[in-house]
């Protein structure tokens, strides 16, 4: 698969290996690597063990990156492992926001909506990703040229109210809009501020860049490895007319906001 353009081989081992391989292929199908391996390209490798025999697991787990006896649990834990591997690989190169990224299917204009866990990035992707192209619900990578690096990972969703673990669901299974030929260009940076009892329409305000920087840094991976990180983030913010802060309660309230932000001229 490819995550943030990092080629990753996931080796599924153990008695549950074939079942795990099928589950990974189904959930991560939008990250499947259809391109032929480049001659000098190095692949990162993850070894994941699914073994329902606990005794056998104990003797074979050493040397694996992830192991377990339960498919749903292993799939749940695999997602952050892949993200961490890809993000670490692109550290200092891409600007990587903890964000949901959605793009206009015609212009490729992209809104990056960043915020901490609990601000509803996955819900946003699930709700608005049927109207816009789904680029990610986790890590939005932006090149120095302002181009998006898609990471259309599966969405982590509780399928039943009593579920303890989230299921990894392919974006295609949820009817989200697939990535086209692109390119996708960053045109809006939105800081998410979810207030559960916020009434009426979502509100949008442009922040002075200096006031936006603390949260931008907090919601960006490996900021310290960037050269002059505050200047790089400030330049990115200025390139899209400043960071906007969206206050909202429900994901659907952001539909007109995102539409206004990405349907402008490319």
């Amino acid at each position: 698969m490819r995550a943030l353009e990092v080629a990753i081989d996931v080796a599924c081992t153990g008695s549950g290996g074939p079942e795990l391989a099928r589950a990974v292929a189904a959930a991560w199908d939008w990250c499947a690597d259809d391109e032929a391996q480049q001659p000098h390209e190095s692949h990162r490798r993850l070894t994941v063990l699914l073994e329902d025999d606990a005794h056998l697991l104990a003797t074979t787990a050493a040397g694996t990156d992830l192991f377990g006896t339960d498919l749903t649990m292993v799939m749940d834990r695999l997602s952050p492992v892949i993200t961490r591997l890809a993000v670490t690989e692109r550290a200092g190169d891409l600007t990587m926001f903890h964000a949901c990224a959605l793009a206009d299917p015609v212009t490729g204009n992209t809104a990056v909506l960043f915020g901490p866990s609990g601000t509803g990035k996955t819900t946003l992707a699930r709700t608005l990703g049927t109207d816009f192209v789904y680029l990610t619900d986790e890590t939005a990578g932006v090149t120095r040229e302002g181009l998006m690096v898609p990471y259309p990972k599966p969405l982590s969703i509780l399928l039943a109210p009593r579920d303890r673990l989230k299921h990894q669901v392919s974006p295609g299974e949820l009817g989200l809009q697939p990535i086209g030929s692109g390119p996708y260009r960053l045109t809006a940076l939105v800081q998410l501020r979810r207030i559960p009892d916020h009434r009426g329409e979502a509100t949008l305000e442009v922040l002075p860049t200096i006031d936006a920087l603390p949260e931008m840094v907090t919601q960006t991976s490996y900021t310290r490895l960037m050269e002059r990180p505050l200047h790089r983030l400030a330049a990115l913010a200025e390139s899209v007319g400043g960071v906007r802060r969206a206050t909202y309660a429900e994901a659907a309230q952001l539909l007109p906001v995102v539409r206004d932000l990405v349907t402008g001229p490319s």
Partner: protein
Amino acid sequence: MRARRLAVVDEYVEEGRVAVYSEADVVVLLSELASMAWSVLDETWTDAEDVAAELVDVFGAPGAEGDALTMTEAALHTLAEHGIVELEGA
């Protein structure tokens, strides 16, 4: 009292205000007064009286709000609390 800057990751200035990315991995937004005090300092020791004199040059004498040296020392203490300035004789 005297003060000097500690190493920081980066700093960004916008309309007289400064954001500093500290070695503690935190970005602090400085008040206008603290921003000015920060801009006066470098890696060598500077007496608080000299910082106060620079601030009076820029902002004028504080008048009824207090004396310049006390206000300067308070700003320097704030910078020290953020871990971006070292104090001696405080």
